[in-house]
């Protein structure tokens, strides 16, 4: 790809008025370095509450790196500077209790990663560690989170069987259920459907549409149809820069920047 083809500093980033809309998360001048490699530059984005925001871009554009910085999953892997504002706290600060913060900002990964435990234990494990011991309460959490992830009907009769025996799509929905069992505020999803078949992908997307009533979702995706189907806002990443951030409709129909237009129309590179 011709690096010099686009001006990486020529950007169009939408700004929200925080008076008008409630922001779930705001980043300010976020920069990520892997050793000497400057992987991500100047991310200053606002994420509206109860909306789905898609992060799109080619491989290596820094979108996953950016996403993983939002709940400190880059700790120990990369150096992250700048601020991530959440409920008035800078969660990128070294003073933040990272484990407590992650209960509010959950994450679903690219490859389904259920624990090698039963379906029941997969969901209740972290909840129990968090102090909920009551059996009825746990049963209720298992049922509601599996229903939210559209998995309840498929597994309700064998909650005690191993999660590893589920299909890939079911495993991924179990991982979503496991994340929302903690009742987070924000759900970060790192290409949650890229390892799944089209039918499972569709189910995950339906689940997301349902989830956004109660959760703010930020999703990284390679699949542009997926971004246009499910998201309210879209940010386009290129070579470690956010080039354009706008309503999804605008990104896909009237992109302001040449790089965005080339990418969404498939003329990239």
């Amino acid at each position, binding site marked *: 790809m011709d690096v010099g083809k686009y001006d990486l500093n020529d950007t169009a980033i939408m700004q929200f008025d925080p008076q008008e809309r409630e922001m779930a998360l705001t980043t300010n001048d976020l920069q990520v370095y892997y050793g000497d490699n400057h992987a991500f530059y100047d991310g200053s984005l606002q994420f509206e509450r109860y909306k789905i925001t898609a992060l799109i871009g080619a491989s290596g554009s820094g979108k996953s790196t950016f996403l993983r910085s939002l709940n400190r999953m880059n700790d120990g892997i990369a150096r992250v500077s700048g601020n991530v504002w959440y409920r008035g706290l800078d969660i990128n600060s070294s003073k933040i209790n990272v*484990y407590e913060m992650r*209960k509010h900002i959950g994450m679903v*990964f690219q490859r389904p990663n259920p*624990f090698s435990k039963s379906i029941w234990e997969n969901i209740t494990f972290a909840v129990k560690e968090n102090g909920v011991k009551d059996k009825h309460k746990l049963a209720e959490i298992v049922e509601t989170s599996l229903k939210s992830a559209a998995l309840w009907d498929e597994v309700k009769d064998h909650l005690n069987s*191993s999660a590893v*025996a589920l299909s890939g799509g079911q495993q991924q929905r179990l991982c979503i259920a*496991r*994340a929302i069992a903690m009742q987070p505020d924000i759900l970060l999803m790192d290409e949650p459907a890229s390892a799944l078949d089209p039918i499972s992908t569709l189910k995950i997307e339906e689940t997301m549409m349902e989830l956004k009533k109660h959760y703010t979702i930020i999703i990284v995706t390679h699949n542009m149809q997926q971004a246009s189907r499910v998201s309210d806002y879209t940010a386009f990443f290129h070579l470690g820069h956010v080039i354009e951030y706008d309503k999804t409709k605008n990104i896909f129909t009237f992109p302001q920047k040449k790089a965005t237009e080339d990418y969404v129309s498939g003329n990239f590179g």
Partner: protein
Amino acid sequence: MNMKTVNKVALTTIKIIAGLVVVILAFLIGRILIQGLPHISWHFLTSPSQEFIAGGGISYQLFNSFYLLILTLLISFPISLGAGIFLSEYAPKNWFTEIIRMAIEILSSLPSVVVGLFGFLLFVVQFKMGFSIIAGAIALTFFNLPLLTRNVEQALESVSDLQREAGLALGLSKWKTVIKVIIPEALPGIVTGIVLGAGRVFGEAAALIYTAGQSASTIDFTNWNPFNAASPLNWSRPAETLAVHIWKINSEGIMPDAAAVSAGTSAVLIIVVLIFNLSARYLGNKLYRKYTAAGK
């Protein structure tokens, strides 16, 4: 020669070599068993050994071997578990960690007779422990520790990073993630390593000759107070194990049935080691299936 012929020749060669290994092993084990099995009886397993007359057994040696093994595992497992967890999960990638790894590597390649002599000079002589089970157990710990640590470290490292991320993303602390997610996942590998290590420790002789000693002091199997000198559980008494017994009989045994006792002891030793190895496979597979397959 065309590719197909080359392939065939290579495959046949490999098969012959593999077959040869199996044949040698089968021959060795078969010979030991054929010579030793006729001598094994309930009497042989349950009566003390004799120095000058025929008809001695191996009851003390058998008990000593197991007792030493258990003591060794009690000392070495917690240390190697901690060291393995540190190396796999917490150790920063720097020169200090590299030195620790290298030290473990070197420790694991020390000849066991050197470990034994070191144990003799330090524990038996310097610390005035005398020839004793505890000195033997510590020497065997030196022998077992590096391999067990490597085993724990490798078992933990073989667990996918996705599992660590899954735990951390749910707000679990790193320690909780290691204890409740990673270790259960690595358990089959860890258990297999412990049992295989136990087999090696069980058959070890050189490290014990100068530490646990070569004499089987009289034990009273009705006295289980570990502080009584005649108790089987007393760890400051000298204790000859099966492997040391074999070595001793063959070098200075003067009982009339020395050859038979030696053959019988060898057979018992090899049967126990085989049981360890087979149960390691069985346990490992069973645990693996329990954690991965459907249903329980």
